[in-house]
Structure formats: structure tokens, C-alpha cells
């Protein structure tokens, strides 16, 4: 029982690590206040769920779950290229509301608020991922690969260009950097990993509905990025573990389920306030929050 509970938590941690690392690339490294991340997560989850239910293989589904949000991110980045700060945040937030509304109301495709049940667990190379321990290995491998890909990007000349854009976009342009294209690639890469995380989420729960993709579901991911520290990958991992585990004691207090959700949000808010007061750069951050 306890083993099963811990495996569940570890799977959630790996999925959140992938999601948060993607957000760290666009927010922490590039300085794009991207509030549309949860929408890319949703697109990945729904596309993967629908394709898996149609009997398509896991690798195809997860690839589409990455590519489809990346395509949406491309169009979003073209539309928002000249926007910064609050304006970019508002536009990407609006995008996340549009995707949520579609998930809720395009019932023919998404089954609306009833959600999509019966998503089959992956099976490949003769391995059945129906058991949670096997699924944990799969999600852990994908999380580790994600970490090393994002790390490679952030240490590359392109990654340093993203940081330069975050610090001073005009100065980066005067050094010959095509900042519009770089921001676009950053958002596309970020959304690709959000989509992959969404796919794993759908496969893991075998059921998705729009309530998993509301703005309030983005809050813990944003908190992870801030608490871990902007532009810090080890910080992202550390903060993911903390943020996933933080509200877990609420389960054991005997609170009614209607209070656990708001209680979780209050805990995140309180924790974020404490971090901002006592560790304004997060645990491992090197960048000041502005």
C-alpha cells in the first residue's frame, strides 16, 4: 500500500519535472512570462489520449503529443513576438483559457466535462506498463532524457543567447542575435516538453478531463520555477519534489475533499511568499526576480 503510494508520488514528480523543465526554459532562461504552458500540456494529453484510444502505438502518440503543441507554440510565438512582460503573459493566459474552453465544449472530440476514460497503458518491446512500477521506470527515463536535453540547450551558444535575451533583448540584437527566432524556438521547445508531460499524464491516469488543465493547475508549476530559482535546472528538480510532496499531509488530516483542493493552493501561496521573503532568488537561482 505504502509502496504503491510512493510510486504514485514518484510518477507525479517525474511528470512535473518534465513539465517544469519545459517552463524553466521559456520563463527562467528566456524571460518569456509564458502562462500558456498548461494549454500545451492539455494539447499533449488530449492528442495522446485520442490517438492511444484509436489504437496507435505509444511512440507515435507521444511524438504527436510533443509535435502538436510545438506547432501551436510556433503560431503563438509569431503572434506574440513583439509582446513582452505583462502583455505576453495576458496573451498566453488567454490562449490557455481558449484551449480549456475547447476541451470543455468541443464534446465531439474531447467528450467535454465527462473526459476521456479508458486510455490504454503503453506496451512496447514486450514490456507492459500497466503496473505503476514499470510506468515509473518509463516516466523516469523520459524525465532524465528531458533534463539532459534542456541542460545541453542551456549550455549551448543558443542557450546563452536565450539568457542574453532575458537580460537585455536590444543588446542581444546589437550583437547580431535574431531574438525573434530564438524566442520562438524557446517557446516551441518548452511546449514540446509540456506536450510530452501531458501525454505521460494521460497514459498514467488512463483518464483525463478538462479540470486537470485549468489555470490553477499551472500555479504549482510556476511555483516550482520560482522556488527552484530562475534558470536553475537542479533547483527545478529540487523544487518539484518539494512542491509535489508539500500538500500530501493534507490527505491524512481527515479534511473533506472539498477543502483539500483550496488547502493545496493556500499552501503553495504561503510557501511562495516565504521563499520570496527569505530566498528571493529561489533555492538555486542566480537571476533576480524582477
Amino acid at each position, binding site marked *: 500500500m505504502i509502496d504503491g503510494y510512493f510510486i504514485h508520488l514518484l510518477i507525479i514528480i517525474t511528470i512535473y519535472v518534465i513539465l517544469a523543465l519545459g517552463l524553466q526554459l521559456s520563463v527562467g532562461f528566456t524571460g518569456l512570462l509564458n502562462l500558456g504552458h498548461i494549454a500545451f500540456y492539455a494539447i499533449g494529453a488530449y492528442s495522446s489520449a485520442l490517438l492511444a484510444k484509436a489504437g496507435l502505438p505509444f511512440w507515435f502518440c507521444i511524438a504527436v503529443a510533443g509535435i502538436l503543441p510545438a506547432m501551436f507554440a510556433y503560431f503563438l510565438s509569431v503572434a506574440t513576438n513583439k509582446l513582452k512582460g505583462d502583455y505576453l503573459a495576458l496573451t498566453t493566459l488567454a490562449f490557455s483559457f481558449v484551449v480549456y474552453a475547447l476541451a470543455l465544449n468541443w464534446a465531439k472530440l474531447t467528450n467535454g466535462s465527462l473526459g476521456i476514460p479508458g486510455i490504454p497503458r503503453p506496451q512496447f518491446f514486450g514490456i507492459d506498463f500497466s503496473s505503476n512500477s514499470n510506468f515509473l521506470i518509463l516516466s523516469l527515463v523520459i524525465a532524465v532524457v528531458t533534463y539532459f536535453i534542456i541542460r*545541453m540547450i542551456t549550455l549551448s551558444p543558443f542557450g546563452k543567447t536565450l539568457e542574453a535575451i532575458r537580460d537585455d533583448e536590444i543588446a542581444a540584437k546589437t550583437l547580431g542575435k535574431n531574438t525573434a527566432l530564438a524566442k520562438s524556438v524557446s517557446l516551441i521547445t518548452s511546449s514540446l516538453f509540456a506536450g510530452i508531460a501531458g501525454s505521460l499524464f494521460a497514459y498514467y491516469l488512463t483518464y483525463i478531463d478538462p479540470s486537470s488543465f485549468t489555470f490553477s493547475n499551472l500555479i504549482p508549476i510556476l511555483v516550482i520555477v520560482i522556488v527552484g530559482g530562475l534558470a536553475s535546472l537542479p533547483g527545478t528538480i529540487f523544487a518539484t519534489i518539494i512542491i509535489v510532496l508539500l500538500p500530501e499531509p493534507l490527505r491524512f488530516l481527515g479534511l473533506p475533499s472539498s477543502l483539500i483542493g483550496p488547502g493545496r493552493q493556500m499552501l503553495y501561496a504561503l510557501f511562495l511568499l516565504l521563499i520570496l521573503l527569505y530566498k528571493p532568488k529561489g533555492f538555486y537561482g542566480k537571476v533576480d526576480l524582477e
Partner: protein
Amino acid sequence: MERLILSNLLELKNMHKSFGGVSAVNGCSFEVQQGNIVALIGPNGSGKTTIFNLISGILAADSGTIVLDNVNITDFSIDKRAKMGVSRLFQQSRLFPNLTVEENLLIAMDLRNFNLFSRLEASHEQTKKIIEILDLFELRKKLHVQAKTLSFGQRRLIEIARAYLLPHKILLLDEPLAGVTPRLRDEIAKFLIKLKEKSETIFIIEHDMNFVLNLADEIIVMDAGKIIADGTPNKIKNDKIVIEAYLGEL
């Protein structure tokens, strides 16, 4: 040292730029010749930095033409102009504060935009260039520190180094001596004299008249968005209009 004048490297033709009815640049035309150091002087608000912003593409001109090395760059983006060889030092600090000094310099030297699969590391040649310039400014020990930890003067020196290390045809230096200590002024002055000996093409805005008169091959004087005089330092020093509009203030 004998200086060989090759051709016009930069040409501005009939440039106009207004902000809400206020004319910041009003019909300016001039050339900067290859290998020359040209100083742009004038009272505050005369339009000097606007001229630099027009050349580097930060502002779009209302009308006029900018030609760099026989290529019309008037409609080019900022990054394309930089790739064409326009390197710019800003009046205010524009280092990337969260990057190290080395990263600030390397990012200027490495013009590959989309290399995602290798580390940003200096080649042997790049390291040599970086160390050479940091030694000149006595800042080698700051190589791996974040730029935001540097003092104002140190930031200024690194910014000058960064503008120099960006592969360029022309250096636009906006008040390189502003706000630095006398010792740093001497260091920067020595560096610019060294660049002059290397026949670098430099377009410089500077208020220190003694420095400008000693360094520049040609001086352009602006007032209220217009060019009121241009010529050799000796000619400018004795120009009545210039004395009234600018030098007389000193």
C-alpha cells in the same frame, strides 16, 4: 604613422527623425571613411545618440538612406546590421548582468544563432583574444564572475571589449569616457589610440573635447538635429559657429 584612406565605409544621406513633432535629426548627411576616427559632438539633445540609434537600427528613420560598405542597410533589422559589421557601445550599461564576463564576451564573438548541441566554449583563438583585452584592462581575474558584480567602471571596460570583439567593420562608441574615473579614462583613451593605430574605423560621441581633438581625424558638430560644421579638429576648433553653439559653453 601614415594612414591610408580607402573609401567611404558609412554614408548617411538626408536623414530625418522626429518624435511627436519634435525633429531630433533634421536632414543630416555625412560620410565616415574607412580607417578614420570620426567624432560626433554637440550639446545635449542635439541628436547625436539618435544618429547612433538610426545607424544601429534601434530607431527607424522617417526618411533618408544609410549605406554601409556599399550596401543600403536602411531597412535592415538590428541583428542584420550587426552581422553586416555595425558594433555599438551604448551610453548606459547594457551588459548581460546574469552572464559571466567570459559569456558576455563570447556571445559577441560567436555569431552562430542556433547552435544547440555544443557548449558555449572559447576556442584557443577566442581565449587568446579575450585574455589579451582583459589583460589590457587589468580585468583577467574577473573572467568568470557575473557581470552584475562588476563596478561601473569595470562594466564600461567590458562593454568596450565586447563591442570590439564583435566582428565588425565600424565601431559606434557612445560616450565611452562618461562617468569613469580619471585612471579608467586614461586606460580607455590608450585603448582607443591603439585602435587608431590599427586603422579601425570608429564613430564616436564624446564630450571630452581635449580627448576628441587629439584622437579624431574628423569632427562633425550637431546642434538641434542639424549638422552645423564638420572638418578636421583644427578647423572645428576655430569655427565661430561651433564656438558659439558648443565650445563656448565649456
